[in-house]
């Protein structure tokens, strides 16, 4: 009997039902204390009473049980009076009203469902005021059954057998829910195994596993065989015909043929994984290798390591073993080649050359400012004769408002049409090794001299 678990799983639902907060109202803090004496006595008497009535019901099959007999059974056990037992029995026999919303209609209005009769767990004989006999109501029997619901894996084989019976009865609609139930049991069992492998102080569970190890293995095998048998049976020709007929019925219309097969497949997959996990546990038990690390006071360790620091080597060891790491491979990074790559790109690119300052400066581009400042001067000098790099540098055309414009000035020699787009007759000659000039910033420029000149001086001198 696991009444506390059954009650714990429904207590908050009932609290919510009884909660007086309306939708959209202020914040509500659910109380953690329950009303009443908090002794737990009436709960114990009630569950004992129900259990006793259930046992008597199994013997007598719906016969009334005299209150006197109940009193004899329970009074001494709980040190309570006859009135106390009547109080509990009356409480359990008095219906209460539970309201839930069943659905919303097409206008969004809730369709409420009221349960009252079902809340009475014990019943008195009808049409009389005598309260000397009672028995469990249908709801009472159901609640006892719920409290007894076995969740243990040892009983899972029986549930797997239900799959075969469902096919037998052509109850194909039940197969997905039966499968889900079985998969849920597999997961629950798997979680227990995980707990055993990971947690300390699981002695009770560990003893259970050690005692029932072979039984558990047998159940795993049994479930697998049952599901395989059901899947095979489902695949027989005769059954397939029945299934196709069923699919055409009202119940089968929401089904696809694949659903049932998928259900079998999911259980078999889950059972296979469970089997592997169980083997891990078995080998851990067999080799006594269940090394579990429990709770560590990391907060105190932090204080301790401030007062008594460990060595740098130990810190490095810890960070290397457990801290964040990155792959640091001694190989060239693409960034190492960025200069080379950009030059290669420039030589093949059809895009217009863009100077870096253009992107961030609202002023005209530096080349535009350079041409605006010096174009006329350069053309005037060209009208007189060829203009060398040295001459230009000496004329001061490599600085503009304290900005170095040497690249722009040299750019004129590579693209003379910048000076005069309408006339392409400007040419550049090279004087090998003749360049040797001191720049305003103190650097010296040496190499081939570049000389800009008109290809046909007579025509262009007049135009300039």
């Amino acid at each position: 009997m696991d009444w506390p678990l059954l009650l714990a799983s429904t207590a908050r639902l009932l609290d919510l039902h009884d909660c007086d907060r309306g939708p959209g109202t202020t914040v509500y803090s659910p109380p953690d204390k329950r009303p009443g004496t908090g002794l737990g006595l009436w709960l114990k008497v009630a569950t004992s009473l129900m259990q006793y009535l259930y046992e008597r019901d199994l013997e007598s099959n719906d016969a009334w049980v005299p209150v006197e007999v109940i009193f004899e059974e329970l009074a001494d056990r709980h040190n309570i009076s006859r009135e106390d037992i009547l109080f509990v029995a009356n409480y359990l026999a008095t219906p209460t009203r539970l309201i839930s919303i069943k659905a919303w209609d097409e206008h969004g209005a809730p369709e409420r469902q009221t349960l009252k009769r079902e809340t009475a767990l014990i019943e008195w004989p009808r049409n009389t005021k005598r309260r000397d006999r009672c028995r469990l109501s249908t709801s009472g029997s159901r609640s006892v059954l719920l409290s007894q619901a076995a969740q243990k894996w040892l009983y899972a084989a029986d549930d797997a057998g239900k799959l075969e019976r469902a096919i037998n009865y052509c109850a194909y609609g039940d197969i997905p829910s039966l499968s889900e139930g079985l998969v849920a049991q597999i997961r629950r069992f798997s979680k227990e195994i995980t707990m055993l492998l990971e947690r300390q102080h699981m002695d009770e569970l560990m003893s259970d596993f050690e005692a029932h190890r072979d039984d558990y293995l047998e159940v795993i095998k049994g479930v697998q065989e049952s599901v395989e048998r059901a899947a095979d049976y489902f695949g027989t020709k005769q059954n397939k015909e029945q299934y196709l007929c069923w699919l055409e019925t009202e119940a089968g219309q929401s089904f696809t043929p694949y659903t049932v097969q998928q259900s079998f497949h999911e259980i078999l997959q889950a059972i296979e994984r469970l089997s592997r996990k169980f083997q891990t546990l078995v080998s851990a038990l067999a080799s006594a290798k269940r090394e579990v690390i429990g709770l560590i006071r990391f907060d105190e360790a932090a204080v301790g390591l401030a007062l008594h620091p460990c060595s740098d080597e130990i810190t490095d060891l810890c960070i290397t073993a457990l801290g964040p790491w990155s792959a640091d491979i001694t190989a060239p990074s693409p960034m190492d080649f960025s200069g080379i790559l950009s030059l290669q790109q420039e030589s093949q690119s059809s895009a217009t050359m863009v100077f870096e300052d253009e992107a961030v400066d609202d002023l005209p581009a530096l080349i535009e400012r350079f041409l605006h400042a010096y174009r006329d001067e350069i053309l005037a000098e060209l009208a007189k004769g060829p203009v060398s790099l040295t001459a230009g540098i000496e004329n001061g055309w490599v600085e503009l408002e304290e900005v170095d414009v040497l690249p722009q000035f040299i750019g004129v020699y590579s693209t003379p049409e910048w000076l005069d787009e309408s006339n392409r007759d400007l040419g550049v000659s090279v004087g090998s090794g003749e360049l040797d000039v001191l720049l305003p910033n103190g650097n010296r420029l040496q190499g081939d001299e570049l000389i800009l000149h008109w290809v046909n001086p007579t025509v262009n001198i007049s135009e300039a």
Partner: protein
Amino acid sequence: MDIGDIGRVYHYLLKYRSVESKPIQRRSRDGESVIASILRSASADQLDQLNEFLAPQGFKVIEFDDTTRGVPVAGRVWVLARSEDAPASSFMSTERVFSEMNVRGNGTQEESAVWFLHIWLIYLSLVYTRAGRGVSEVSSYVDATFSREALEEAVQDHISHIRQMGVSEAAGSKVIEILDSEKGKDVPRRISAYMKLMCAAGLVCEIDKNEYQQTLLGAYEIAQNYDSSLRIPIDNTLGSLVNIVAPGVDDNEVEDAELWA
């Protein structure tokens, strides 16, 4: 899984540290579904071969199925974990820890290491100690959530506590000097650096803005490698802590300290 597939899987795992066939807390990363398909269709022998390839580099791939909490039904998660049996890979670097934690730009490696270690221990106290969770409880990674605010508050509390204790107990400790030297926004900046490192390494993930959770990889590695790493200084220092703290603490704290001494 041919040699090209192994290359793809290896590259992906080096970059992201984990592959999920059905991520539930984030969108699939670029190429993740392809890598998951490769791993999913790999036979047990092929996965063994992948692990043989990784073993000399100090790594192993661990597969988790839906019997693990947090893995969706029919889903799989693979993580690239450091192996406890092999030495660390030659290309594995922790240099980034020191550079990221150097938030002022002029700190020493020792300062970075001290800050990292202490924020790390406080993080571990949040997701293990406070939760009553043992180090071996890998599957509880799904419950190991924390906010940046909570971590910051815990670190600030730790520093205040150290300042108080440090004066009377070990005023000369260099570590106390380092922790005591924090000012202004140092702690928030160091926590940002810490979270950035942990997220990049796949040990922690950001599940919402400033809300984090330990990853399966993070939990697995701690459970596997704790004995050979953090246990050494922690066992050592908790032994010392009893002697230092015992006179001034209540019975419960002494009981805890003795438990791990």
